[in-house]
């Protein structure tokens, strides 16, 4: 039996939110706290590196931008489901985060006058997407990882996968994690923790996500009794590259790219005459799917029909300077050079608006546990997130939760106590059951079926019948999973075991998405139902919160905080 590992503060996840939380906690504690960062991947390789287009912040009020305008754009973009107190705090705290990263080394792109450059982005009235070429998230990760080396009170646990959160009577106590290198399970105890384990939509097959972004961040707190909020809202980014689904940044349209159907038309003029290609993502994605479904798309492989994203008129120089990654991946993965030819694209699963329910400080329902970044739902993004607000969310809420959790840990001298029985149960579940079975169901087969189900039933246009069938299938797959056998029995770096644990997490997260979607009988933001095509503010201007019970998921609804602007008809 391994011994219990203690740290004052544990941060789970090493993406932008996790690393930002770690820096803030290290700063606030002035070397007094013993801080740990646990990550399923190597510390600087989290999915945040894939963020491309930019980070939203009000930097130029003298040129017409304002906090209220950023707040309004975000609220309108959210289809009025965002909590307006959270939005207001977020826009207020954002500019400092940009300057902070800049001082640590972030290579933000520049204007001629030496100041930080910004570009246009979907749903934002002012060009406030702060960017570093088209690898913004990559550079944010690089900068945060770099500056963390200034502190010697942070211990890293790379390639340790958290399998369980220990929460008793509404109090966070610790967690259990698998050391992937050795195949051993360990119990961690800490006074406080920041849950920044990331979102992840790998339960879809056509997705922008890294292979490692599997929704663990949702499933583990859910199983520990915490509520998940607004999970039915899954963002489909308009431009996923055909065939792999790799993200083609919205920056491509921010810099002036056109969306073109097979008749050669810029079809967005029918759907958003004012904002055109730079309408919010839910609107652009629906427009593209309508074009494809009505036969104005191009035929693609495996049924992945598509439209064209045309950048050829931007010129070689602009593409090379502003969109180098877009060009690189188009050439490498689709054989298309955007300088000369249009890029084949189709809406792609990209971001969950929902997540672990938290308050305006990022505190979860469990005392001593905060959640930051994509994994939480404050709710800042409501029913549809604007591009560039997610990396911004990670920075602001990484810093807020890092500070809150560090202050909490400093105020408490004693560590919580947790029964070692938790570790024994987890060992039994993983080593005796999953790995102990000589034969059983194939986890990869379950994963393939789950992905096909999500792609079919919970894509852009949804309806009662498809979703009911989808949920039924998810429940069948969950049952099958009970008999899964891990094929590889070796303790050392057993990625077969890791993938299997991930698949279980995907199934749990998928079920909550399905249940939330079935019960929201309206169309709002990213949740579009053909059987209920209108927004219904009378019945559904509320957040869905799902808790796990012995009888399955239990839904409650909570009011939206509408402090400044009442909902209006959403047009662009």
């Amino acid at each position: 039996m391994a011994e219990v590992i203690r740290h004052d503060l544990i941060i789970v996840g090493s993406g932008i939110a996790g690393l930002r939380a770690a820096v803030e906690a290290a700063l606030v504690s002035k070397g007094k706290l013993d801080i740990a960062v646990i990550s399923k991947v190597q510390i600087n390789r989290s999915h945040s590196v894939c963020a491309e287009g930019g980070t939203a912040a009000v930097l130029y009020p003298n040129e017409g931008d304002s906090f209220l305008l950023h707040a309004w754009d975000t609220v309108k973009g959210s289809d009025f489901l965002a909590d307006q107190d959270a939005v207001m705090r977020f826009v207020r705290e954002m500019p400092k985060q940009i300057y902070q990263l800049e001082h640590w080394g972030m290579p933000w792109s520049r204007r001629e006058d030496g100041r930080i450059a910004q570009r246009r982005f979907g749903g934002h009235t002012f060009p406030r997407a702060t960017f570093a070429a088209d690898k913004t998230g990559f550079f944010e990760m690089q900068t945060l990882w770099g500056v963390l080396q200034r502190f010697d009170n942070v211990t890293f646990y790379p390639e340790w996968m958290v399998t369980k959160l220990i929460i008793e009577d509404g109090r966070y106590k610790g967690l259990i994690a698998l050391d992937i290198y050795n195949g051993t399970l360990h119990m961690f105890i800490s006074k406080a923790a920041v849950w920044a384990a990331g979102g992840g939509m790998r339960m879809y097959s056509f997705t922008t996500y890294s292979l490692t972004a599997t929704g663990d961040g949702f499933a583990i707190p859910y199983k520990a009794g915490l509520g998940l909020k607004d999970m039915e809202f899954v963002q489909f980014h308009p431009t996923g590259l055909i065939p792999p689904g790799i993200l083609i940044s919205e920056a491509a349209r921010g810099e002036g790219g056109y969306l073109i159907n097979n008749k050669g038309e810029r079809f967005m003029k029918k759907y958003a005459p004012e904002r055109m290609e730079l309408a919010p993502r839910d609107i652009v994605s629906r427009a593209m799917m309508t074009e494809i479904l009505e036969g104005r798309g191009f035929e693609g492989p495996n049924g992945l029909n598509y439209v064209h994203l045309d950048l050829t008129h931007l010129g070689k120089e602009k593409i090379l300077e502003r969109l180098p990654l877009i060009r690189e991946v188009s050439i490498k993965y689709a054989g298309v050079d955007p300088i000369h030819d249009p890029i084949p694209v189709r809406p792609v699963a990209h971001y969950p608006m929902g997540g672990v329910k938290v308050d305006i400080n990022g505190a979860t329902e469990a005392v001593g546990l905060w959640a930051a970044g994509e994994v939480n739902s404050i709710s800042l993004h409501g029913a549809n997130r604007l591009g560039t607000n997610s990396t911004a969310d990670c920075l602001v809420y990484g810093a807020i939760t890092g500070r809150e959790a560090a202050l909490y840990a400093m105020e408490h001298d004693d560590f919580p106590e947790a029964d070692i029985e938790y570790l024994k149960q987890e060992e039994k579940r993983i080593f005796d059951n999953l790995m102990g079975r000589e034969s059983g169901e194939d986890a990869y087969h379950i994963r393939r079926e789950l992905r096909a189900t999500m792609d079919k039933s919970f894509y852009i246009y949804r309806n009662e019948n498809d979703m009911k069938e989808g949920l039924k299938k998810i429940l069948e797959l969950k049952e099958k999973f009970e008999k899964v056998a891990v094929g590889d029995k070796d303790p050392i770096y057993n990625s077969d075991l890791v993938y299997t644990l991930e698949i279980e997490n995907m199934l749990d997260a998928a079920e909550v998405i399905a249940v939330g979607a079935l019960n929201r009988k309206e169309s709002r933001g990213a949740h579009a139902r053909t059987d209920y095509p209108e927004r219904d503010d009378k019945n559904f201007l509320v957040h869905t919160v799902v808790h796990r019970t012995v009888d399955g998921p239990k839904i409650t609804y909570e009011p939206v905080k509408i402090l400044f602007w009442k909902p209006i008809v959403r047009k662009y």
Partner: protein
Amino acid sequence: MSKMEVKNIRFVVKRWDPKDGRFFESEYTVPVYRGMTVLDALIYIKENIDKTLAFRGSCRMGVCGTCGIVINGKPRLACETQILHLNTDTVYLEPLHNLPLVKDLIIDHTPFFEKQNKIKPYLIRRDMEEYWNPTREYLQTPEEHLRYMQFTYCLTCALCYAACPTTATNPDFLGPQALMNTYRFIADSRDEGRLERIAIIDNPDGCWGCHLAGACSEVCPKGVDPALAIQLLRREVAKIAFGYVEPVEGAKVAPSLQLTEKRITKGPPEFTVEGAEEKLKEFKIPKTIPVEKSK
């Protein structure tokens, strides 16, 4: 594009078993379609043929730096290597060289990361108050930005480290990545740590250890060119040795904002909830942000 032609390709994987510390080989036949990458093939093998094969992979788009392995003798990212572009019927895979083995294609990056972090991979400034509590950005023109930008694209994938002949013979050598990154910060007009940085690399295990093989630049998947950076780094060291001292003061903090012509005229709509003005005070948000008038 809708029809997939498939060609069977033989994969030979050089694996390492941590239990007995021995190498062994496994062979797999994979149906390869156009556009399929080596990482796709590894996933295919894992899902359909051999669940025990261990490898890493994450972003599958050449950004995270996770999946570096040796493919047909050359260090590459598995996710960026299209199988049919290799033009062979047999693909030979090995773990990266010059780093400790964990299992099969998995290596331990720890020594590599330790070196990368030893060179202080962050801006060094003297005014720590501004550093931790920023008021505005440090000014930097697009030309100044371009001087170091090329060297920021490093993924820390360790392909250069695996290809470097000096690293292979001298485990204390900092390696191409760390040296390149040192130059990246020296070339950054905001940095004030030139002398501190040079003190770390001005020795036989630093920039003088490089034998100019240039293998690092040849294998770099992002065209970062560490070999060039090392040459430029040596020039910086030489300048100091010859008594040429550049000013140590980095870029200045930008002046406060001047009132300029507004780029847009349409602001947010008026509040529609009663008591909103009062509520707004809690968030300390000015309705208009005070800016200095231009002279």
